[in-house]
């Protein structure tokens, strides 16, 4: 049904990606703007503070926000150029409907009415759960909360999930198992105070650049840096100890490190006895995990594993940092708890300079997942299957508990069910699964089978191109609300401009749909502040307790760390948000004094057994394929592949390959190669570098269509977190044939087009465009 109606060339010409270079009105002098709006970057989970320059209701530039404590003005290239997504020629400005000839402009009335009619038709015919919703964590926490409530009470479907599923869910599940709470254990300031920093599976220089400054500040004071990654990424280059482990073998390395720590008496026995449970089983599980054993699995020399274990074990203080390299596995949760085992065994948690933190990849990955659009959670990080949790949320929402649907399917499972024909309709907001989910060809087939698909977005992403109805939503700078950074710091996003053309704020669109579905009484909000006030009440008493946080405090204190629970009896019993108190100072460092969030107050060891990845290399597919990011692109590239200067930094995906492997395959730097797995193949250019293991190739994942490496990755999921195994596939690499090269060149040609606008394309012209 939902097949793309135009040719690739026609889609590119009409909807981009167009490379946008020039700010609205041209480049300006330092003072040439109406006002500065203090807000945050719209990209990764560091959520750097930034000032946007605004003139005539357009964002025309940026100014560093040096007073914001996290980044003190520092920005990566994406942060610097983020403002160029405003006044962009590809911006969706009015609702559209797909016809046999392409998309045609329709009225909001028609777009909403047709969407609602389809929802009703499909649900009447096939049941409530046959209409699913997919959400994104570029949304503010207020919008995430609203989406959770909207799907459960307006759509009345259990099948709601979000793109954080592709990001940090393994870390969240692992942290809950180990510590009883799903958050980085410390503010980033503790990195600076650590004597040893162990980074595993995280390219911090390219994915979380500001974090490198925290690491360097620690190193200036003598801290050692241990870096484990299959690639010599820019921060690994300078590390005191580098461990180039084979993709998928993280838990073997971590088990061996724990083995050495126990063997050499580097455990903190007092901490283990007083503040943890389960140590004996974990000790037993790593009994045979010698460095020599791990060396065979990981490829890292045994003496280097011993050294890493001793450095970490002997240091007075230490931090463990990881990201998707550790978590994007079918054993992502096991990898995370293996890190937690190290921290608990050495007592390096809950005190100054100590901690174990995941680095949030997506902007509001932290806040978004805590408050409702995750298929198994209710606001406050509550469990949707727990009757008490359900009862409390039902009370806040003013519904019967039975009216809240149960646990639904995760993101990939929703696509699987669409493919199987069981889910017939879809509403999505700010999620581009066609690029970001694994096995893209399968997912494309799934989208084609939908009976109806409505999308809310601001650009026509690869996925949105399959929609029947397109509703133009809002950019981050066009609305206000809060997000929560990777540190656990709740921060304020401020509105800089109003949505252009007929585009509307996302929450207003959802409210309109709810109203037309006859469920308007549950959504009485006049603004997003009212949503936050309800969220405070809904989160009260949950582990992610925001009830003591107000917008005013967030602004004044430059962020407040959750949990910030109620401190007064009145607040703890309040039934109205206005009766909540805001006295709690917030919690930058969790677990102080060895107090954890499990009911027994202890940290839990989790014994892990080594196992292989879902797919391993064999005679047919003999090379490991792993994926990741480049510094100038963000996630599925929906936003960054439209910003010219960022695309110029790294225009097309390239495959990193070691010279030794390249020589065996007779591949030279810059030559076209075809990478193939059991799911599909891609033809791109090779980048011959000795900064990667010789048995592994790497391809970044930000591109769509025939440049999408996610055509090759697999849908195997972690059994607990349901995160796909992006980081390990078995592939074969060969020189591309002339026909494949032609396809590769065609894919590069269709990846983007350059805007044809005069240098001083002004605001007046933009307004004319918007009113077209």
């Amino acid at each position, binding site marked *: 049904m939902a097949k793309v109606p135009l040719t690739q060339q026609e889609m590119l010409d009409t909807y981009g990606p167009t490379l946008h270079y020039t700010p609205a009105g041209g480049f300006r002098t330092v003072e040439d703007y109406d006002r500065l709006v203090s807000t945050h970057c719209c990209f990764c989970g560091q959520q750097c503070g930034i000032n946007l320059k605004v003139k005539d209701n357009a964002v025309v530039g940026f100014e560093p926000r040096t007073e914001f404590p996290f980044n003190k003005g520092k920005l990566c290239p994406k942060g610097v150029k983020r403002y160029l997504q405003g006044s962009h020629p590809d911006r969706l400005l009015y609702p559209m409907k797909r016809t046999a000839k392409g998309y045609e402009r329709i009225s909001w009335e028609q777009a909403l009415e047709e969407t609602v009619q389809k929802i009703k038709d499909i649900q009447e015919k096939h049941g409530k759960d046959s209409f699913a919703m997919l959400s994104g964590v570029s949304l503010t926490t207020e919008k995430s909360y609203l989406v959770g409530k909207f799907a459960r009470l307006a759509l009345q479907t259990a099948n709601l999930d979000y793109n954080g599923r592709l990001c940090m869910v393994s870390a969240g599940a692992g942290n809950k198992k180990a510590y009883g709470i799903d958050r980085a254990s410390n503010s980033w300031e503790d990195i600076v105070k650590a004597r040893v920093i162990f980074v595993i599976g995280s390219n911090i220089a390219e994915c979380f650049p500001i974090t490198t400054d925290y690491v360097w500040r620690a190193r200036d004071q003598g801290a050692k840096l241990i870096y484990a990654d299959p690639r010599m990424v820019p921060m690994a280059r300078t590390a005191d100890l580098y461990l180039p482990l084979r993709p998928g073998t993280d838990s073997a390395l971590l088990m061996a490190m724990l083995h050495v720590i126990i063997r050499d008496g580097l455990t903190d026995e007092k901490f283990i006895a007083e503040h943890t449970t389960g140590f004996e089983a974990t000790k037993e599980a790593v009994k045979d995990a010698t460095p020599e054993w791990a060396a065979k699995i990981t490829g890292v020399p045994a003496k280097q594993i011993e050294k890493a274990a001793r450095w970490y074990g002997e240091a007075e203080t230490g931090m463990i940092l990881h990201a998707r390299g550790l978590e994007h596995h079918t054993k992502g949760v096991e990898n995370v708890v293996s890190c937690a085992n190290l921290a608990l065994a050495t007592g390096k948690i809950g005190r100054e300079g100590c901690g174990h933190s995941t680095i949030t990849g997506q902007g509001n990955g932290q806040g978004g997942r805590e408050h409702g659009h995750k298929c198994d959670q209710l606001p406050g990080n509550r469990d949707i299957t727990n009757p008490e949790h359900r009862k409390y949320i039902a009370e806040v929402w003013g519904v019967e508990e039975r009216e809240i649907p149960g646990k639904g399917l995760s993101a990939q499972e929703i696509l699987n069910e669409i493919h199987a024909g069981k889910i017939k309709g879809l509403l999505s907001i700010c999620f581009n699964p066609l690029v970001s989910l694994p096995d893209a060809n399968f997912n494309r087939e799934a989208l084609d089978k939908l009976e109806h698909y409505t999308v809310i977005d601001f650009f026509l992403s690869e996925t949105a191109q399959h929609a029947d109805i397109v509703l133009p939503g809002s950019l981050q700078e066009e609305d206000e609300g809060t997000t929560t950074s990777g540190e656990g710091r709740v921060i304020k996003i401020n509105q800089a401009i109003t949505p252009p053309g007929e585009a509307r704020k996302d929450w207003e669109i959802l409210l309109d749909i709810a109203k037309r579905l006859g469920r308007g009484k549950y959504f009485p909000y006049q603004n997003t502040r009212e949503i936050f006030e309800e969220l405070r009440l809904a989160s009260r008493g949950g582990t992610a307790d925001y009830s003591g946080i107000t917008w005013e405090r967030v602004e004044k204190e430059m962020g407040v760390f959750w949990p910030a629970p109620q401190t007064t009896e009145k607040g703890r019993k309040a039934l109205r948000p206005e009766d909540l108190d805001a006295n709690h100072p917030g919690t930058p460092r969790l677990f102080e004094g060895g107090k954890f969030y499990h009911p027994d107050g202890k940290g839990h060891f989790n014994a*892990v057994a080594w196992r292989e990845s879902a797919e391993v290399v064999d005679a047919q597919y003999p090379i490991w394929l792993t994926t990741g990011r480049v510094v*100038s692109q963000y996630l599925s590239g929906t936003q960054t592949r439209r910003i010219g200067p960022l695309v110029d930094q790294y225009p097309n995906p390239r495959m990193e390959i*070691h010279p030794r492997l390249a020589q065996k395959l007779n591949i030279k730097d810059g030559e076209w190669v075809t990478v193939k797995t059991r799911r599909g193949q891609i033809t791109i250019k090779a980048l011959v570098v*000795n900064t990667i293991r*010789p048995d592994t190739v790497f391809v970044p994942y930000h591109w769509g269509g025939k440049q999408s490496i996610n055509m090759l990755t697999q849908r195997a999921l972690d059994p607990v977190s349901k995160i796909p195994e992006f980081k390990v596939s078995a592939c074969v690499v060969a020189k591309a044939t002339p026909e494949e090269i032609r396809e590769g060149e065609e894919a590069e040609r269709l990846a983007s087009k350059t805007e044809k606008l005069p240098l001083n394309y002004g605001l007046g012209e933009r307004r004319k465009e918007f009113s077209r």
Partner: protein
Amino acid sequence: MSEMRFFIDPIRCIGCKSCMQACSECATHKGKPMIHLEYMERGNSTQTVPMVCMHCENPTCAAVCPADAIKRTEDLVVQSSLKERCIGCKNCVVSCPFGVPRYYPEMDQMMKCDMCYDRTSVGLKPMCATVCPSEALFYGTLEEFQSRRKGTPINTFEFGEQEIKTRVFLVAPDGYVNLSMDVMHHLDGRFDDGAYDHLDPFAHLEAMPMSGGLL
């Protein structure tokens, strides 16, 4: 003269080009960065080096300019060529020992880093040093640098018989830095030449005492 100094610490550079993107925002050189990022050979290293104008005490570029187009401010910031004077001869381009000035044919003018004079002259930091995520570019006093950071700031350079003192400091790392980034050097013996064929599909599956797990 201002106490503020500019420091370049290549070891910290993460190659993100944040400096170039921020520099290109300036209204005086619309969309063009005046800071450049040099790469070591990418095949062998992820090392990158940002390069700004060094703001020499006796700038060779100004000395060789036949049109007297390159001026220096009172606080020793060497400016881009004056548009009305620059004759586009490129003497400055070829004479600069650091290879900084560039000639832009579309403007018919030499342009280079002027240390964000529009910002530094009013007490702000240069844009590149403000945004640099890893502080590979740092703007502050010498005392501030030395109290916070490792490494030795150097601002005297010898090019043959020519000694040049600069306002910008390059930071030399403490101790030896190995710039060979070959991952092979960090792998175990099986990856030594001839000892392991990584195309052997079952090499990683050799018998392991814990294969299948203990639980």
